[in-house]
């Protein structure tokens, strides 16, 4: 074997060894590059999904109005343990976040899982204003029935767990929207039945026409 050939084989062997050592690192770098960068919406959701906690939080049994698994096209109060603030605004935010994120199964969801609550205000006259992200509209199944059930699940959940709310205004991304998802009129206010008129243990489904 000539000296030149030996040198070539040694150089090639060295390159193979260096390549084997560097391979895992290169693979990791490649995987990092393949992973898509977090969108603004994802980052915002991560922040929003952090459970809101306040010094006055007390774990209580909240009544959440999701779709009834047994009676189609109606809502049913589902009790869940939830830490809720004494402050009505923080309490309402906690409830609406739970309404979006804590449905026991996808089949009983009333609001799109990708939606988020951007802001919530409560005026002294009992008018609640809930501002949802765009996904609240874009992810909503289109139709009078599904859109009305979504609105009623919000109004009834607030009414059953927060005192002093009389009516609800829904905004989408800070704006007044003409409809929720092409049908339900968001022009006016939706009535909210107060704590006194909502029996927490009621098991009868609420028909969508009951207003």
């Amino acid at each position, binding site marked *: 074997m000539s000296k030149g050939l030996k040198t070539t084989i040694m150089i090639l062997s060295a390159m193979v060894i260096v390549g084997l050592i560097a391979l895992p690192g290169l693979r990791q770098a490649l995987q990092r590059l393949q992973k898509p960068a977090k969108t603004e919406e994802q980052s915002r959701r991560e922040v929003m999904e952090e459970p809101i906690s306040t010094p006055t939080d007390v774990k209580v049994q909240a009544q959440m109005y999701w779709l009834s698994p047994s009676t189609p096209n109606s809502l049913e109060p589902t009790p869940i343990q939830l830490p809720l603030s004494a402050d009505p605004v923080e309490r309402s935010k906690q409830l609406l976040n739970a309404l979006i994120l804590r449905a026991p199964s996808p089949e009983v969801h009333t609001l799109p899982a990708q939606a988020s609550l951007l802001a919530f205000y409560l005026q002294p006259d009992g008018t609640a204003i809930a501002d949802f992200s765009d996904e609240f509209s874009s992810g909503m199944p289109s139709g009078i029935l599904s859109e009305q059930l979504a609105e009623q699940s919000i109004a009834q959940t607030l009414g059953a767990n927060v005192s002093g709310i009389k009516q609800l205004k829904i905004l989408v991304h800070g704006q007044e929207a003409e409809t929720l998802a*092409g049908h*339900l009129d968001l022009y006016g206010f939706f009535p909210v039945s107060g704590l006194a008129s909502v029996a927490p243990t009621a098991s009868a489904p609420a028909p969508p*026409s009951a207003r």
Partner: protein
Amino acid sequence: MGNDSGILVRVPSQSKYLLFVCVMAVAQVLSGTPGLVQAPANSGLSAPQTTPGTTQQVSPAPSQPLAEPPPSPQKTLAVVVLDPAHGGADPGARGSSGIAESDVVLSFARLVRISLEAQGFRVILTRQANDDPSFDDRSKTANAQRGNIFITLHVASTGQPGTVRVYSMPRMALPDSGATSPHGSLLPWDRAQFNFIDQSRRLAEMIQIQMAQRFHGSSETPFEAPARQLRTVGAPAVAIEVSSVSVPSRAPLDQMGPGLADGVARAVAAFKIIYESGGK
């Protein structure tokens, strides 16, 4: 009964407003009946004593003697405005098999039209093809008619397949003082439906009963929902929503068309008797 003292008109531009006022003035001189115009806020054509953007009554010129208003004509229901919802870039509800609400409701509207015409009604469609008039444009088609009812047709994403729900507008809280205008019986455009809620409810009841007889599982009583399209219609108005686009193919929905059309036509014919007799 509802407010039938005038027609509410929203005029999108100054030139159209001018043309409309001229036409209304001529019509008033000829007929002696007042018209109602909701002037656009930026038209600059409001009478000096009125606030821009408010409803105003167009009166005959001062030199014209005020004619004794003729006895109010007997109420007749002759026209049905059918609204196939969505269309164009807005397909409405979409099924996983590709069914588009906008296509199905257009087919339904054509069938309902045939059945209503067989009952002697004149039928106007808010869209004839795959276009998408605005909510206000669809309402304008209805509000330009006298003696009419309005039916908007939908297919839901959800609900028990093969059933039909009929909706009328509930009495809903509004952002300002109330549902009625300070100008007596006149109604602002954005709440034109509020004087017709009782009649709309009656019409919804009659259609829902027909649907319950034809489509097993459908409710016998109608529903209330603040459907956007209904709010700006100044006539008895209902929304019919068929369930649903979730079916695996269009065939089950297409099979519902003839029953839907026949039921609607029979209900409207029965409603006509009540409407024309002045009952609720």
